[in-house]
């Protein structure tokens, strides 16, 4: 499946849920927030939130800032 992740088009994604996507990308779910097509996906829903071809996914976390 093709997704747009953090602005980059990524092909061959096998994950079908947000949680699987995070696993596939080796990202610890605990410290990130996820947005799919501009709406936030709650952490509790990561497992059941299904991704579709072409979804725009944003995965963010905290970095140093003032």
């Amino acid at each position, binding site marked *: 499946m093709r997704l747009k*992740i*953090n*602005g*980059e088009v*990524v092909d061959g994604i096998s994950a079908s849920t947000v949680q699987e996507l995070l696993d596939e*990308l*080796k*990202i610890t779910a605990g*410290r*990130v*927030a*996820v*947005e799919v097509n*501009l709406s*936030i996906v*709650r*952490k509790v829903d990561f497992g059941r939130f299904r991704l579709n071809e072409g979804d725009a996914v*944003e*995965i*963010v*976390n*905290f*970095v*140093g*800032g*003032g």
Partner: protein
Amino acid sequence: MDDTLIIRGIEFRSRLWVGTGKYRDFEETRKAIEASGADVVTVSVRRVNIIDRKSENLLDYIDPKKYKILPNTAGCYTVEDALRYSRLAREAGISDLVKLEVIGDEKTLFPDTIGLLKATEILAKEGFIVLPYTTDDPIMAKRLEDAGAAAVMPLGAPIGSGLGIRNPYNIRIIIETAVKIPVVVDAGVGTASDAAIAMELGCDAVLINTGIAGAKDPIAMAAAMKHAVIAGRLAYKAGRISKKLYATASSPLEGML
């Protein structure tokens, strides 16, 4: 005296708040925060690097159980962006705290107060504990309080400028008459005396990032700021002597030969 700062029921051990930007590495960040004695650290919300996953995470160095994580919306120039980042921050984090920034232009990084007011109102309604980064305009501070801000964070001077508290008069007016919520000076503090002056004006806390991270020795400057904030707070509480143009002897005349 018990002198704990409380905002919306949250207790703050330290009146020095620190940023986590501009450090050489996470280890230096960790050491500086430790030296500062701060229990609030600001962070920004940014995209995870999905290409290079090795890169460590800031939170590996700052234990969210030990520190209050205060996400900012730095870099947001519109109400929409500020809302989006705030909501992502809350989702990524563990609290409703947000240091709200709606920036007006890149040269000054001064707030766009009109957008700031709108965003504050919306986020407050959504249950956020909104700490807006604003100008030193007392009227705007009051407006933000009315819009639901939990505290106001007036700037002392442009972010990273190190100019200190450029207009202590306005800060004093904000504290004395404009608002009842806590006042936390944000931006401009360049050295220890700047932080002390902010606290002597009656501010409830000071937020510093560049002033510490940009110093030649950030760890030492973090310690300096820690002592400066304590000093300024104590001096404010102690009640300083009044200023006089002429002298008054400190030694007695009685008993001279």
